[in-house]
């Protein structure tokens, strides 16, 4: 029922939505460089796509701003969020950083950079962390949008680096979907934006993008959690929705929350 409603709203949005939305590409100066795809081919999962969306450009942009964040010998994902004179800042999830003690960032050109926590940055009870690294190479950094006022059904795009099952490394995963739920207040960890895109282990910390390629959220909770209850508001209360309605969505921390802390 909920899903049907979301799809209906989504279709309405696609029909009435602008098809010529000014984006951050192409020709805006932030268009992604044509870098060699050394990590792996971009894999696209695109069940339904509204018209007027430049999917190849979105994919290239996602690949340019999404990094692999290594914590010791395991990884999550991250977003190149800012740069200044050869120094880069990478936004990721706190729970990605928990997985190890020493950090490295693998950029889209395949290079590995030693990274460290940015001192003095605190995200409170939000599942966010900020790393920095230095490099003479030029990398595209993200442009930030907003998510909390998006209508249900708005098309969104998620990216990140899934942890492989068996030996297969999928490289960057890029999935399409729609906004499915936006909660009036944040769950523990700051999660507030629900969406239908599939998120896999390892994609935590990767970007949730709008059709213009702006980062509107940070991936963090996949569908159907295995144990525990992530759907508890920060004040300890719980939403008036059953588990399935919540577990059908992946969940992101809205970029508005990131902005408040930077």
């Amino acid at each position, binding site marked *: 029922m909920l899903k049907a409603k979301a799809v209906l709203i989504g279709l309405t949005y696609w029909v009435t939505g602008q098809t010529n939305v000014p984006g951050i590409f192409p020709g805006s100066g932030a268009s992604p460089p044509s870098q060699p795809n050394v990590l792996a081919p971009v894999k696209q999962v695109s069940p339904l796509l509204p018209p007027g969306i430049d999917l190849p450009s979105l994919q290239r942009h996602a690949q340019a701003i999404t990094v692999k964040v290594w914590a*010791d*010998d*395991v990884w*999550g994902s991250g977003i190149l969020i800012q740069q200044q004179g050869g120094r880069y800042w990478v936004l990721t*999830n*706190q*729970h990605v*950083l*928990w*997985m*190890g*003690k020493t950090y490295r960032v693998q950029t889209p050109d395949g290079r590995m950079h030693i990274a460290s*926590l940015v001192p003095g*940055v*605190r995200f409170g*009870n*939000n*599942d966010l*962390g*900020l790393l920095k690294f230095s490099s003479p190479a030029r990398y595209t950094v993200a442009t930030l949008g907003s998510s909390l006022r998006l209508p249900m059904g708005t098309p969104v795009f998620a990216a990140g680096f899934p*942890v*492989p*099952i*068996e*030996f297969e490394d999928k490289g960057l995963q890029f999935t399409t979907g729609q906004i499915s739920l936006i909660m009036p207040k944040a769950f*523990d*960890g700051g*999660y507030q934006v629900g969406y239908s895109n*599939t*998120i*896999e*282990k*390892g994609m*935590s910390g990767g970007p949730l993008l709008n059709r213009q390629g702006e980062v509107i959220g940070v991936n*963090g*909770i*996949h*569908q*159907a*959690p*295995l*144990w*525990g*209850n*992530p*759907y*508890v508001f920060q*004040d*300890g*209360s*719980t939403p008036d929705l*059953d*588990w*399935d309605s919540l*577990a059908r969505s992946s*969940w992101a921390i809205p970029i508005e929350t990131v902005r408040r802390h930077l």
Partner: protein
Amino acid sequence: MKRTTLVSLLAISALSAAASVTVGADKAQAQVATRFYCGQSRGVPATVAETPSGIRPVIRWTSDYFSGSGYTPEVRCKIVSQKFQQNFESGRLRYLTIGVVNQEPVICVAETEGGPCSDVLYTMKRGQQDAFATKLRLQAVGQGRASGPLNESTGGGPVYVSLADFVNSLPVEASATPPSTPAPTPEAQPQPEASTESLW
């Protein structure tokens, strides 16, 4: 039989236990197709969960620490994966917590947040310094992220809590097996120690 006393480190969280139990019950019924087994991830034995929405790696078993006593990564992977599966099937895999059994720290299953251990998943090596961090990481794996004790972190990096502090905080030392649970054979042996395993 002495009641095994276990400590939920999630007590820090202010969430309503009653409400979350209800939600947890719904979840267990909704995920009948989920299955835990010992597979592989990046070439090493791994406890993985096959779910309707994808395959989730849970623990990579990389440590050879107990291989000498027969607990190779493969053996540990099979034992613990089976325990995950058994607890999932019986609807008991709701929350994970840390307890102490026979003076050793254990990762176990709790049916309620803050509730007692209903089954031991594995025993951690005695003296392990990062049992707390291991537990937080496992909690993050289950939820797809880290949970409430984020504020335990002082520097934004890994959470370090001395095991001595943790053990000293226990109200009662436990030495018996959990109530209504037969002594699990694997726990009677030197147990796989998971501090060096990789979690997501």
